């Protein structure tokens, strides 16, 4: 490596964005969109009938919510791995209403009301998901 010269070098000419782009970039966009569509259609295309919701931790169901429970306005308190959660139901929907976990992604997810929607709190290992069935199709991908 040579010693850097102190002489001020001219800044290189900015190229336009369209000249910068390469054919592979299109491949990246198409591939990512295709992957997203495939993953999405794998679960969302089947119109499932809601059978309730369940709260899962590490693969085991902690609590099942029936359709009647989802229709009733109520708060449920849960504790998991030292974090405290309030789960709210009402109007056929369910959500994490409050949590003291670090990132609050679970609360930001908001209401979920039909499968395969989920709300997850990774720090507390909690997964709240809508359950449903549609003519024998396993909508939970389990």
């Amino acid at each position, binding site marked *: 490596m040579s010693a850097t010269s102190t002489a001020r070098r001219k800044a290189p000419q*900015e190229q336009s964005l369209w000249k910068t782009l390469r054919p592979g970039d299109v491949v990246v966009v198409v591939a990512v969109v295709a992957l997203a569509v495939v993953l999405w259609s794998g679960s969302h295309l089947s119109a499932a009938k809601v059978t309730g919701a369940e709260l899962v931790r590490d693969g085991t169901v902690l609590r099942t919510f029936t359709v009647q429970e989802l229709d009733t306005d109520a708060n449920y308190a849960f504790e998991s791995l030292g974090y405290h959660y309030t789960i709210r139901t009402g109007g056929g929907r369910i959500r994490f209403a409050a949590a003291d976990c670090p990132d609050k992604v679970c609360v930001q997810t908001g209401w979920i009301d039909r499968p395969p929607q989920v709300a*997850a709190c990774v720090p507390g290992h909690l997964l709240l998901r809508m359950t449903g069935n549609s003519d024998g199709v396993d909508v939970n991908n389990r």
Partner: protein
Amino acid sequence: MSGRTFRPPSVTDHPHAVSAYVRRLVADGILVSLAVVLSIVERWIPLNFLIPVPGIKLGLANIVTLFALYRLAFVDAAAILVVRCVLTSLFLGPASLVFSLFGGTCALLVMALLRRGDGRAFSVYGVSMAGAAAHNIGQVAAACLILQDLSLATSYLPMLLLVGLLTGIPTAAAAVPVLRRLKKI
């Protein structure tokens, strides 16, 4: 660029080799501090007002990974990534460490792969977008492992992938002028 190995110089080495090594070490240190700052600053950007997907972020620290991949070497980028993740978790809490490491490693490997061929096949934009997608895949994979449930991959990952395409563009747009001006480090 000063060699691609990570061998510390010995006293018998030529002085130029020693100074090149020190220069590279200093560059890595500066890039680590820059990456840590960017990781913290991006938390202040309320991206959720624009795109209502929970848990998304711009991925500003990826600018540093991009720069290290293009102007230093893979080992530098990997070392900067690991040190950045550990330091950031000291500031922001240890819960995110597994995710940033998992996602960051996936992004680094994919970007290193696409970066080969020196920009003939992929521009910085393509590399950045693919890195963002790989980062999201890695994070959701880590979440699926922890929760022992695959439903996040179908319900949450598609949205994240599309958002990653969008957030990969400003990161690359920030990296491109820097790369163009700093040919040598």
